[in-house]
């Protein structure tokens, strides 16, 4: 069981080391070596545990918990300090409430409890650990070069890279802790760590906008934290011996005890996963440097939110509260996808699509039948890979062409062919047929039909899914437009970045190919152990989809057929003679430039309007859940 403490503690040690290294070469070396070790550790853990199912580990509760408590107090003091300094009193208020709850819990109950099994691992933890340990570390390596260029481009921003990489590795440590902890007190501690990392990294550039958005994120996450602390209090109140603090023990204890904490933690998950009405923090978090968005705000941290919800999915099954959580997720999926149509900033499109997909995962977990949990875990995997790839591509493009706007990515296939192809694969991975996300959506549709009130979700998926097609394809279209005059600018991209991008692209495709294997070795046993039955795609469909992927991979070779003998003519411009850079003689002899711009349908899918609707709807639903919950507690 040494792997788990290693994975939790080693990144923290690396982090402390990085805090003190100012030399860039040395930092590069340390980050790469640490990343390699963490990656290797994860893979080792995978091969050790993937067959063994759920394993609980007896870890001494005492010294660790005390250290955590002290660290939590330090975090609270820090937030208190910056909150007062920046006059963000909501954050101050929330941290005071949360700390008060925590101190109360700690002083009244925790002294008397001695939980034994504090760490655990099962297939689901393992999947999350793989995402953190492989994708997370890849993003760390990518960030090295990115931050170098970032500071070269923004001389006005103070170079705090030591802090940056410190936070990155602390974050990895926190995430590992979160997915391996069985004890909810520990989960809460790691939960707070991720909140803190997110807060500091969003505010990295120290501009006014960044600071504001960082506080927005902090406040919303703290709101979730308060609910989480409430869940802890409730559990200890119900049983002061603390036996229900273990996730496994809680899950097996039945609805009567588990429902209230599950819903409270579900609420915390909703805030962390940035579902409506809390979606604004994740959109605001896009001011952070792109690796931060890739690591925290798409592939890992927000997955912590859905991780706890999926964990508690068996508790939600068939309950009104679960249905409400599912509906919050469902509506978020529909509305966030629609908003993405109206956005032209690539990072905002990615942000909304992330929110939408997290919504879909929560919808699956909230309704919580075994088939849906299967689909939800599949979504987590595919989304993490494809989304981090896309973020990193956007980051690379941004540094070369100086813009994050999709309109400016026109003709990327000419200017940055390799990146464009990777981006193309990433986008295809998000919505096209034989690729991952679509498999999961498809499985979700099939599963929802049989679930209670499933028709609402089927409708949401039918409409939301087709909306998704719209905004991804028009982005794809932009990047593959072959502009007649374009300069190639991708030669300056450094080899570390290439390495990471290639690997993530390969993963996007490979995971689609081997997903039946992932499903049968990891997801199915997990679902089986929780529900006693499991879902899978039929053999025929898997074969057909594998064939489709191979066909897709073969198709580009058809370009060889057209190598010669193809005659080129300029695009039809209504008969007007046009120069090669698409300028033509307009009326009165004025030379005009051709500019093609995508549709954004501001009137139909405008951010403001839909956000308002989503906030109202989801806020109402959460209130309803709150009322129901109060009923249960009383």
């Amino acid at each position, binding site marked *: 069981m040494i792997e788990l403490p290693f994975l939790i503690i080693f990144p923290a040690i690396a982090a402390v080391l990085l805090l003190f290294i100012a030399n860039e070469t040395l930092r590069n070396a340390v980050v790469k070596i640490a990343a390699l070790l963490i990656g290797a550790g994860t893979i080792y853990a995978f091969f050790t545990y993937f067959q063994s199912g759920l394993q609980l580990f007896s870890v001494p509760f005492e010294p660790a918990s005390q250290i955590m408590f002290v660290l939590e107090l330090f975090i609270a003091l820090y937030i208190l300090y910056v909150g007062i300094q920046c006059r963000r009193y909501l954050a101050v208020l929330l941290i005071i409430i949360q700390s008060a709850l925590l101190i109360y819990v700690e002083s009244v109950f925790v002294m008397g409890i001695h939980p034994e099994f504090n760490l655990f691992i099962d297939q689901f933890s393992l999947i999350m650990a793989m995402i953190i340990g492989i994708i997370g570390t890849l993003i760390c390596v990518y960030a090295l070069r990115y931050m170098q260029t970032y500071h070269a481009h923004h001389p006005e921003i103070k170079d705090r890279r030591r802090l940056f990489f410190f936070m990155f590795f602390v974050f990895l440590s926190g995430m590992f802790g979160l997915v391996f902890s069985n004890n909810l007190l520990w989960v809460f501690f790691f939960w707070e760590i991720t909140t803190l990392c997110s807060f500091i990294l969003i505010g990295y550039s120290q501009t006014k906008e960044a600071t504001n958005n960082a506080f927005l994120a902090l406040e919303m996450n703290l709101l979730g934290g308060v609910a989480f602390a409430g869940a802890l209090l409730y559990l200890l109140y119900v049983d002061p011996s603390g036996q229900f603090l273990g996730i496994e023990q809680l899950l097996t204890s039945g609805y009567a005890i588990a429902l209230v904490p599950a819903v409270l933690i579900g609420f915390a998950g909703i805030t962390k996963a940035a579902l409506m009405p809390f979606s604004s923090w994740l959109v605001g978090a896009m001011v952070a440097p792109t690796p931060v968005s890739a690591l925290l705000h798409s592939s890992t941290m927000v997955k912590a939110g859905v991780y706890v919800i999926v964990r508690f999915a068996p508790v939600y099954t068939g309950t009104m509260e679960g249905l409400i959580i599912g509906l919050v997720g469902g509506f978020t999926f529909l509305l966030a996808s629609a908003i993405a149509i109206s956005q032209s900033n690539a990072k905002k499109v990615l942000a909304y699509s992330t929110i939408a997909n997290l919504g879909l995962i929560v919808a699956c977990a909230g309704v919580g039948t075994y088939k849906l949990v299967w689909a939800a875990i599949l979504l987590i995997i595919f989304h993490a890979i494809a989304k981090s790839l896309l973020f990193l591509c956007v980051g690379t493009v941004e540094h070369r062409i100086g813009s994050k706007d999709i309109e400016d990515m*026109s*003709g990327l*296939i000419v200017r940055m062919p390799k990146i464009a192809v990777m981006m193309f694969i990433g986008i295809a991975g998000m919505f*096209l*047929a*034989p690729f991952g996300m*679509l498999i999961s959506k*498809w499985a979700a*549709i*099939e599963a929802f*039909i049989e679930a209670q009130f499933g*028709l609402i979700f*089927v*409708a949401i*998926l*039918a*409409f939301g*899914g*087709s*909306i998704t*097609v*719209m905004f991804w*394809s*028009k982005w*794809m*279209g*932009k990047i*593959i*437009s*072959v*502009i*007649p005059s374009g300069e190639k600018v991708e030669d300056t991209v450094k080899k570390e970045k290439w390495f990471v991008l290639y690997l993530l692209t390969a993963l996007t495709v490979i995971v689609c190919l081997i997903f039946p294997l992932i499903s049968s070795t990891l997801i199915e046993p997990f679902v089986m152990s929780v529900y006693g039955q499991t879902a899978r795609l*039929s053999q*025929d*469909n898997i074969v*057909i*989809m594998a064939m*489709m992927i191979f*066909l*897709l991979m073969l*198709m*580009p070779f*058809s*370009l060889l*057929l*057209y190598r010669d003998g*193809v*005659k*080129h*003519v300029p*695009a*039809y*411009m*209504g008969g007007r003679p046009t120069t090669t850079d*698409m300028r033509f003689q307009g009326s009165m002899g004025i030379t005009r430039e*051709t500019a*093609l711009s*995508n*549709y954004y349908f501001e009137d*139909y899918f405008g951010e403001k309007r839909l956000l308002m609707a989503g906030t109202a709807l989801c806020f109402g639903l959460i209130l309803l859940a709150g009322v129901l919950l109060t009923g249960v507690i009383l």
Partner: protein
Amino acid sequence: MISLTNAILFLLLAPIIGGLVSGIDRKLTARMQGRVGPPILQPFYDVGKLLEKENLVVTTSQNFYILSYIVFIVVSGALFFAGGDLLLVIFAFTLAHIFLVLGAYASNSPYSFVGAERELIQIIAYEPMIILSAVGMFMVTKSFFVNEIAASELPLILYLPGVFIGFLMVFTIKLRKSPFDLSTSHHAHQELVKGVTTEFTGPNLAKIEIAHWYENVFLLGFVYLFFAFNPAIAIVAIIVAYLLEILIDNTFSRVKWQLTLKSAWIVAGMMGLVNLGVLYYLAGVLI
């Protein structure tokens, strides 16, 4: 479960049937307009001619997208007639259409660009209703597999009248018929030139045309599923449905994309969802 014979039959026969249907369509349209009209075999002549012509492109990659388009249309259609999973078939068709759209985008030409955007609007307009139709069929027959739906003894149309009306609505969009021929414009040269197909010449245009035949046969197959309990009725239904489309094509003027999107979604929502809701409720009661 998958019938290879049917798939091969589809591969061979669909272009013939699709071309004939298209020829009859043109003849009937001409007659409705008081003209003699082209010979029934005209679509074959057209495609034959296109294949004889020179291949002009703006960029080489257009060829790749169009080849992928027709390949995936054929694969999806074959999967449907082989009895595969209906949802997978629908998603595979979407994939194919995305290739067409990308081919149009690739040329970076204003007219195909507008056509591509409009094609996307059409996709999001019809996609929900098609998925809901598949879901409706599942709710009645408890299977997503086409062969099992087709073998069902239940009269699907009686369970799914609303869904069928919704499907007919998007059928018009998919057949690229007026009032919803937004993206390729058979009737509006002035504004769009030829929309998505503007920048494709000769062989590429022929491929698009053939792919369209394949797809039309798939759509007729989809209509068949609603009446699969009795093949004779089904064939009559297909003929009536197609005649209705021709009539609509000739009597409606083209609408804006806004109305297309709204009406398709409203019909999907009203007809499709209400129908499914009733089924869902009844299933709950009966269980």
